[in-house]
């Protein structure tokens, strides 16, 4: 009985190990491809390879990519994650220019309601953030006194989206300050 179960488990592990070895490279390639295309979607022009980094913010680790625009200036693509979405986690890649303006946003993980909150992945919604300057406009939905057009019937998602962007901008300023401290 034991031997039989052992044999079954052994055979299955062997199969899994083989498939894992074969698919490991394509899986990593697909993940990398996804990251690069997500960065390209939010920061249209940069030179060279994205440099990965991460920073502690509000008790969690926020990942970001530093992107060289000119020799002395860096744009950032920040993976901002909030848990205040309607269905929990909402993760957004936020592109920020060296001047601190948002150059684009794209949802990486979105489990919002299809047809309602999930509209945050549609251009009609995220288009408004291209060129959004947080020093002149308020990153809140209009209902809360801000300058962001919320998705109809999905205020919670829209608020979470704004939270994620606000967080990304905070992180951007921390990175910039940190950079100056080191010099």
């Amino acid at each position, binding site marked *: *009985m034991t031997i*039989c*179960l052992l044999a*079954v*488990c052994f055979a*299955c592990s062997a*199969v*899994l190990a083989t*498939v*894992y070895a074969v*698919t490991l490279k*394509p*899986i990593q390639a*697909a*993940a990398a491809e*996804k990251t690069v295309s997500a960065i390209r979607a939010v920061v249209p022009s940069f030179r060279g390879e994205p440099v990965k980094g991460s920073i502690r913010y509000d008790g969690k680790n926020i990942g970001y990519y530093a992107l060289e625009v000119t020799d002395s200036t860096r744009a950032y693509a920040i993976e901002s994650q909030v848990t205040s979405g309607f269905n929990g986690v909402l993760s957004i890649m936020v592109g920020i220019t060296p001047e601190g303006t948002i150059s684009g946003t794209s949802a990486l993980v979105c489990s919002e*309601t*299809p*047809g*309602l909150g999930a509209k945050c992945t549609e251009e009609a919604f995220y288009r408004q953030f291209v060129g959004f300057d947080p020093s002149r406009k308020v990153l809140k939905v209009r209902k809360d006194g801000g300058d962001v057009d919320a998705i109809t019937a999905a205020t919670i998602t829209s608020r979470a989206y704004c939270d994620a962007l606000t967080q990304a901008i905070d992180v951007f300023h921390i990175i910039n300050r940190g950079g100056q401290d080191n010099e």
Partner: protein
Amino acid sequence: MNKFSIFTKGLIKENPTFVLLLGMCPTLATTTSALNGMSMGLATLFVLVLSNMAISAVAPYVPDKVRIPAYIVVIATFVTVLEFMMKAFTPAVYDTLGLFIPLIVVNCIVLGRAEAFASKNPVLDSALDGLGIGLGFTLSLTVLGLVRELLGSLSAFGLKIIPGDGILAFVLAPGAFIILGYLMVVFNKIFKK
């Protein structure tokens, strides 16, 4: 039972969704569009055929007492294989189905066929049984997804048919129950004598 009827019974007489009412969790959750339903059906089909074959091959050597754990290990292996392959070669599909792929392990259709059919029948018959049941499941999910997509977002297989917004409720969970109920009525009206 001849080979052909082993294959066809899964499509109509023992259709897993509309007749046996098995695997309701992925049925209701993944059929928000025709394509999602179809991908889920095909994923289950893949696991069903392979696990049915493997189980029918090892069944004579597995003692009764450890039957279920052994079958679950075999099924879980094929599901994980499927997960790896989807992540590697169809990442977009994997993103939409995500959570529901690992859940195929506990889909009662798969274990049900292993217990009820594969453990007592030869390898070829089991493969045909898996193929039939799997296709039955795929077709049901595609139809269910198609109807929900048509009513909910006025499109079919991702193509917009009529401009404008559909009836949102059909994309959400309550719509799944309603459509499933009506489709079962229609299906049983046509095929049940």
